[in-house]
């Protein structure tokens, strides 16, 4: 049915159907975010030998995040007098919309995918870059020194790590010869790219953590230095959208990691009776877990170390990786 | 493209470019890894040696037949060879000037960059001269432009330098955008960026609308490129930039950059528009139909340059307007489109190279000590440094076109070219001659300062070796080509085969 839909003429009807489907995905993502936050807190709790949330919604604290969201919804919304009102209101939207947009191209299984566009990877990278604009807008509009400082730092960090991130996936593009995410997954039939591109994987993982502003790269929000960074003036649901954007990215980035390096929905050998969706979910969860694990384990690194690490270590290695891959491909013709 | 095709290319014809690229890269690295305290002059000499090496390799290629590689994006025809020769000689002299450039402030830690940016700009110009494709032409142009922007602002802590660089960037970028817009139309009408294919395709365009679009493209390209020439209508940047930029950069802009501008204008106009129909009843090709427009630009440029130069007190501004005027003279060559066009352009640009660079070498030396660039700095130069004064006089006379100097032969050549076509360009020639006479005023004004006025400071002047070399070479060439121009003409005739391969 979906096939037919895709091949039928694009019109208002299609728009409506897609809209509904996308809303479903949105709800799923929101559900994910709700429980990802809970899971994160729980895992952290366990790792730190604590219980984590355990009051709201039973022993597991299942409704903790829901309650948090409701609280945020009911909070009074203040916009500082000195703020640039239109920009202040616009900023969370700019930050959130790209986060959701990138999900459009990610193939969850060979069937379950929304837009199968030829330049999926490029699309992801291009759109995700827009969030920085939202962050800088928010920090500028707040007209607050902490916010501005945080925003600038966030921008600097995000653009600095965008480069190695983009470069690291080039190895994969080289090997598959395509920017289409489906084809990238298909190309991993002979082995996941984590095996063929280990260096790229490490770079990607580090850079994506930094892009997500997660520990150990959470300087933009460093509570102890900048109070809360770029969203210090935001409260209530406006603030929630910054957080939401962050977690949707979390979701998207984990999906992308799965797709690019862990073979997407592809099963492990001899285990292909398990459906692709499950495989995807498993790998995805593993990535999420690792990222949460990072958060618990690593201390935040210093600002200067952060930037220098990105430019002086990650970028050269990523560049070297590209040519290593190209040479390997040329001489070994592994693919 | 596989390895075999790749190896079948004759890469040797790119040797000069490779040498410049290699030296520029090497200089960058040397500069970065050299201890801070060490003098950067050595880099200048290495760069100079690199240019000489490129020159030698270019001379080795002179007997080489026309050849094009990389899908005709790189072309080695006689046009390319002849004009690359000018570019290389000009840059070599500029580099020598730059080596002896020691401003009071503002260049300390950037000395190294100074040299390799010159090389990068030169590389851009060279690529332009042997490019057969719109894209490479454009990239070459921008390599030249962007390097020049930085060079103009090289004295980071000097406000004039900053300002001149800013103005240069803004004007340059606008000009680039206009040129590009014109280019995009030409591309749209032909679907290719290869100059030859474009020309071939355009001969068959007869759609009225397309011809109109092509005319618009022509107009925009000419307007945009007039920036590089510092010709009307894009000349207004020149005085400020020339004044604010470090003197070697000014010299570079006025000579090498201008030469490159003429190179690209010829490459584009005469490749693309030479055979395009203009849509008028006589079936003239577009370039002839729009000849008057170029002639108008030439006239306006000459008048503006020469008349406004009369009011200048700052020597570099004066030379800016002088160089605008010279661009006007050169545009006359293009506007007249005679069979001597290439020869004339080449000879005049060569003559201009020596006379202007020689003059700038002296200007740099005279102005940098006092820091002032007022014309009165030249007062009494004859007493303080007779050699400098006489050399300057020779250069000025050559710029003014007085016999005995290369400038005169060049002008003679221009006049001849303009008058040979059966409807001679009498008006243009008259304007050119009249403005030349006007130019006597300001050129001789400098001489009056040097010879008639008493010196404020009577101390003797010591000239650095590199500058002496530049002045010596320039003066020798200016007089040699003025007295025995056939050395140059024979060389041109003997080696470049009348530039017939330009259109093939």
């Amino acid at each position, binding site marked *: 049915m979906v096939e037919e839909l895709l091949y039928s003429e694009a019109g208002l009807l299609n728009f409506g159907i897609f809209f509904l489907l996308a809303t479903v995905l949105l709800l799923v993502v929101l559900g994910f975010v709700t429980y990802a936050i809970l899971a994160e807190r729980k895992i952290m709790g366990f790792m730190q030998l604590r219980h984590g949330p355990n009051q709201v919604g039973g022993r597991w604290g299942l409704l903790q995040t829901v309650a948090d969201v409701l609280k945020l919804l009911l909070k009074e919304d203040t916009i500082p007098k000195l703020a640039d009102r239109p920009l202040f209101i616009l900023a969370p939207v700019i930050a959130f919309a790209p986060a959701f947009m990138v999900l459009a191209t990610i193939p969850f299984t060979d069937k379950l995918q929304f837009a199968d566009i030829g330049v999926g990877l490029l699309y992801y990278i291009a759109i995700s870059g827009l969030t920085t604009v939202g962050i800088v807008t928010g920090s500028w509009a707040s007209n607050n020194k902490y916010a501005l400082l945080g925003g600038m730092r966030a921008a600097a960090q995000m653009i600095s790590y965008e480069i190695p991130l983009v470069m690291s996936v080039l190895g994969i593009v080289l090997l598959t010869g395509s920017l289409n995410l489906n084809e990238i997954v298909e190309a991993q039939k002979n082995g996941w790219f984590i095996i063929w591109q280990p260096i790229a994987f490490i770079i990607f993982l580090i850079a994506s953590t930094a892009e997500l502003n997660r520990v150990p790269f959470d300087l933009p929000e460093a509570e102890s230095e900048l109070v809360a960074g770029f969203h210090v003036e935001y409260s209530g649901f406006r603030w929630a959208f910054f957080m939401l954007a962050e977690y949707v990215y979390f979701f998207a980035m984990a999906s992308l990691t799965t797709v690019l390096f862990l073979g997407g929905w592809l099963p492990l050998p001899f285990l292909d009776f398990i459906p692709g969706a499950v495989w995807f979910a498993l790998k995805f969860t593993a990535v999420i877990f690792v990222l949460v694990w990072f958060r618990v384990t690593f201390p935040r690194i210093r600002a200067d170390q952060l930037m220098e690490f990105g430019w002086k270590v990650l970028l050269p290695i990523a560049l070297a990786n590209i040519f290593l891959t190209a040479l390997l491909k040329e001489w070994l013709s592994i693919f | 493209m596989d390895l075999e095709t790749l190896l079948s290319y004759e890469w040797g014809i790119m040797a000069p470019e490779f040498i410049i690229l290699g030296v520029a890269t090497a200089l960058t690295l040397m500069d970065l890894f050299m201890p801070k305290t060490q003098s950067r002059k050595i880099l200048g000499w290495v760069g100079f040696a690199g240019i000489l090496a490129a020159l030698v390799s270019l001379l080795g290629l002179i007997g080489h037949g026309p050849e094009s590689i990389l899908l005709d994006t790189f072309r080695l025809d006689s046009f390319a060879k002849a004009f690359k020769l000018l570019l290389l000689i000009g840059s070599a002299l500029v580099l020598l000037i730059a080596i002896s450039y020691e401003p009071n402030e503002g260049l300390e830690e950037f000395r190294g960059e100074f040299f390799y940016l010159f090389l990068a700009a030169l590389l851009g110009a060279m690529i332009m001269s042997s490019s057969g494709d*719109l*894209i490479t032409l*454009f*990239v070459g142009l*921008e390599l030249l*432009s*962007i390097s020049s*922007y*930085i060079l103009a*602002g090289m004295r*980071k*802590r*000097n*406000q*004039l330098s*900053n*300002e*001149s*660089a*800013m*103005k240069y*960037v*803004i004007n*340059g*970028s*606008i000009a*680039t*955008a*206009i040129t*590009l*817009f014109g*280019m*995009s*139309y030409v*591309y*749209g*009408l*032909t*679907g*290719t*960026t290869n100059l030859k294919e474009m020309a071939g*395709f355009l001969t068959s365009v007869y759609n009225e609308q*397309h011809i109109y679009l092509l005319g618009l493209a022509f107009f925009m390209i000419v307007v945009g490129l007039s920036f590089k020439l510092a010709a009307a209508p894009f000349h207004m940047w020149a*005085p*400020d930039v020339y*004044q*604010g930029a470090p003197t070697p950069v000014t010299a570079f802009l006025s000579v090498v950059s201008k030469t490159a501008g003429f190179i690209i204008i010829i490459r584009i106009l005469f490749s693309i528009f030479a055979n395009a129909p203009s849509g008028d009843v006589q079936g003239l090709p577009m370039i002839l139909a729009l000849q008057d427009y170029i002639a108008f630009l030439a006239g306006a440029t000459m008048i503006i340059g020469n008349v*406004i130069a009369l*009011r*200048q*007190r*700052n020597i570099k*501004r004066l030379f800016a307007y002088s160089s605008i005027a010279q661009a006007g003279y050169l545009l006359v060559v293009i506007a007249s489109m005679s069979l001597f066009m290439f020869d004339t352009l080449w000879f005049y640009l060569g003559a201009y190279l020596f006379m202007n660079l020689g003059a700038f070498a002296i200007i740099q030396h005279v102005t940098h000590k006092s820091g002032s660039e007022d014309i009165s700095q030249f007062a009494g130069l004859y007493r303080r440094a007779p050699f400098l004064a006489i050399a300057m006089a020779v250069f000025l006379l050559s710029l003014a076109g007085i016999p005995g100097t290369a400038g005169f032969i060049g002008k003679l050549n221009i006049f001849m070219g303009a008058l040979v076509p059966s409807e001679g360009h009498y008006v243009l020639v008259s304007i050119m001659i009249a403005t030349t006479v006007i130019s006597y005023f300001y050129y001789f004004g400098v001489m009056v300062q040097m010879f008639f006025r008493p010196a404020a400071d009577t101390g003797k002047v010591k000239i650095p070796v590199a500058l002496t070399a530049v002045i010596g070479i320039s003066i020798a060439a200016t007089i040699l080509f003025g007295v025995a121009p056939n050395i140059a003409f024979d060389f041109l005739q003997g080696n470049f085969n009348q530039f017939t391969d330009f259109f093939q």
Partner: protein
Amino acid sequence: MSAVPVQAYLALALILFCIGLYGALTKRNTVMVLISIELMLNAVNINLVAFSKYGIMPSITGQIFALFTITVAAAEAAVGLAILIALYRNKKSVNIDEMDAMKH
């Protein structure tokens, strides 16, 4: 099948170009001028890409040309901004009409 005729692209590009040109020639703030110039260059890109798809002789070259234009525009903007910063440090102003240290 193309719903949008090539003329529309060309008109858009031309309008964008003119806006850019106007801005570049009239704005006082240098940053605005640089942005206007970017606008002009992007108009060129629209032209090139439109021609590469809907031109008389469609070919991929136009897109390649556009890539080069983008690159060069970026380099130009980078240099322009760098110079602007240097200028701002010395002058504490980014206004075009305050750049008048040089007069005849």
